[in-house]
């Protein structure tokens, strides 16, 4: 029962030296700034930092990335409350009530509650991560090629379905990602697909330059396109929250934490949906739903708990299945692979220490939220006054230099530019970016497992649909497609209203 304790203690012991703690503290402050600055999103920050920590010792690099990840998702609440601009997309729900509270002169209280919400959310998420990961990892060992094929397909489709406003566009983005993964020599027979005789394309498109392009380079263009000049709200009231306020919101926090974690767990559906879903559910359960959007502390708490709980949640499928739970987690997974940790079902058997190291790192990052979130109020207000036009050229330099530095490849600079321009164009037309990245990550898994399954099936393809887990995943995929077909949707809608109408 307690055989995980030595691993967990080792995980914490590895972190408890002054140098590592200093590194964690710097990463936490950096993450807070990245999250708070609109225009520097968590995904972009993590992709850039991965390129910059590549040459560090792997445990330090992963610690930096995890602290940055957690703090960036939390840091988004700062600009959401003070500027009404989500600093990172997952804080959009926070702005609804946070900014209203700030306008009412309760900015300090709102920031304090957002901090406590994020801490509680991350803690619930960590607890569930620790409980769910070992059995899920064990369960995933029974997955074969058929299951991984469906899982990769369902992952990309689920992300396409939920990440944006339009599933068709989400799926197009996902398919484009999968096609990008097809470029280069394929692993089975070494045939260079879509290389057209270009030697650099034969090696395939590297994940990080593509991500830095789609999330960094494109983001710079997107930020400069808007001329919004937000004014910062005054925040002079007390920031340390009162105990009785927190106790009054305890059930909201626990509910949003659990919900956020499970939404994070879904492939490619992460922090932003976690926040929105928690917000919607909190509104439904609330005794005062009319206050939501008019400065409800409950709504603020739900959104902030939900998005931070999704962080450990999104790491669960990374550690057990090798499938990222969100766009940011996809970047973190790429970093884990580069640093030699192989995320996937074998991790629980080959490298269980890594899982507990990550739990320890997440705990340290939670401490970071509490300490820096409540203490660096003045500094953050200064940071938020930095102008986009001064910050963005520096980000652009890092976007181009970072990916180059991975392999000293001049070709990768063009990969960044290409994905930046395409990503910017797609964003303007409302195509979501998360499915694209998930497609690039899962393309190889989809391809190799499809071939393995076909070989194993040996002409009898019933195994794709009759193995229990395959059948379940296949049903999800079919349901997602049918839900987009007009007549089917109307039929289901009519049936549903008939059932509801039958009930009193």
């Amino acid at each position, binding site marked *: 029962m307690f055989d995980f304790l030595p691993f967990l203690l080792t995980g914490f012991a590895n972190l408890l030296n002054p140098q590592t703690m200093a590194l964690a503290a710097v990463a936490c402050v950096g993450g807070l700034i990245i999250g708070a600055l609109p225009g520097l999103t968590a995904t972009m920050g993590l992709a850039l930092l991965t390129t*910059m920590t*590549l*040459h560090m010792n792997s445990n330090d690099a992963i610690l930096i990335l995890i602290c940055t990840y957690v703090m960036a998702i939390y840091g988004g609440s700062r600009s959401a409350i003070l500027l009404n601009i989500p600093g990172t997309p997952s804080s959009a729900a926070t702005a609804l009530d946070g900014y209203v509270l700030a306008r009412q002169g309760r900015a300090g209280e709102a920031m304090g509650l957002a901090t406590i919400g994020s801490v509680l959310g991350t803690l619930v998420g960590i607890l569930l991560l620790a409980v769910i990961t070992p059995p899920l990892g064990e369960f995933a060992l029974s997955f074969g090629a058929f299951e991984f094929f469906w899982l990769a397909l369902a992952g990309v489709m689920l992300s396409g379905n939920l990440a944006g*406003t*339009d599933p*068709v*566009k989400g*799926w*197009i983005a996902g*398919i*484009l990602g*999968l*096609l990008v993964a*097809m470029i280069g020599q*394929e692993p*089975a*027979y070494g*045939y260079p*697909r*879509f290389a057209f005789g270009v030697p650099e394309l034969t090696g395939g498109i590297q994940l990080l330059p593509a991500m830095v392009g789609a999330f960094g*380079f494109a983001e*710079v*263009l*997107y930020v*400069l*396109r*808007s*001329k*919004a000049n937000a004014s910062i709200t005054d925040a002079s009231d007390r920031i340390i929250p009162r105990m009785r306020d927190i106790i009054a919101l305890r059930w909201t926090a626990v509910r949003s934490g659990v919900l956020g974690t499970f939404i994070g767990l879904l492939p490619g559906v992460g922090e932003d949906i976690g926040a929105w879903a928690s917000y919607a559910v909190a509104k439904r359960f609330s005794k005062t739903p009319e206050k939501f959007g008019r400065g409800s502390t409950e709504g603020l708490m739900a959104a902030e708990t939900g998005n931070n709980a999704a962080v450990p949640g999104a790491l669960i499928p990374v550690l057990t299945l090798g499938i990222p739970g969100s766009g940011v987690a996809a970047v973190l997974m790429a970093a884990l692979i580069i640093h030699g940790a192989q995320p996937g079902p074998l991790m629980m058997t080959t490298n269980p220490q890594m899982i507990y190291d990550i739990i320890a790192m997440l705990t340290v990052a939670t401490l970071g939220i509490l300490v820096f979130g409540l203490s660096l109020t003045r500094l953050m207000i200064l940071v938020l006054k930095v*102008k986009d*036009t*001064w910050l*963005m*050229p*520096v980000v*652009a*330099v*890092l976007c*181009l*230099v970072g990916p*180059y*530095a991975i392999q*000293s490849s*001049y070709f990768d*600079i*063009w990969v*960044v*530019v290409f994905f*930046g*321009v395409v990503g*910017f164009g797609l964003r303007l*037309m*409302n195509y979501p970016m998360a499915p694209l990245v998930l497609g690039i990550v899962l393309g190889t898994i*989809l*391809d190799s497992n*499809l*071939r393995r399954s*076909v*070989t194993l099936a040996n002409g009898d393809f019933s195994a794709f649909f009759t193995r229990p887990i395959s059948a379940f995943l296949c049903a999800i995929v079919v349901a997602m497609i049918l839900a*987009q077909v007009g007549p089917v949707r109307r039929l289901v809608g009519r049936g549903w209203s008939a059932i509801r109408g039958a009930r009193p």
Partner: protein
Amino acid sequence: MQDQTTSRADLWSGLFWIVLGAAITVHSAGMPVPRNLGATTMTGPGFLPMLLGGALALMGLTLAVRALRAPRTDAPETAEPVSNGRAFLALVLMVAYAAALATRQPFVPSTVLFVTVFVTLFNWQGQDPGRRIRTVLGALAMAAACAFAIEFVFEQLFFVRLP
């Protein structure tokens, strides 16, 4: 207005995906199947790209048909003022800088030039001459500091040679 431009964009992008998807399908179908190594049509290199190309064309068709049939879309209204000119200016500067790096121009001078020009151009309009001079000098100082800092971090700490 917004609605119509979105559905027109959907129509044209849908048509583009159909063409791209069809091209990918045709190209993938032509990929050789190494039967001497035991491959079949379904395990050959072209099979999955062919399916994906087909799926892309199908999705493009759905998008285009939907855009034709329903001129109204659920595009979110953008309330904040946007300027494509600013994005285009940034794009030109960034591509020029990328080209400089990719053609192995020295890192520090190109970076200083890029950052200074970038900041100056985006902070030029509506400023009096005194402010402009201060902007240029400030930008130059920040550009130099950032170029040397990045070079130091990459070359001295990570041992990566920058261009």
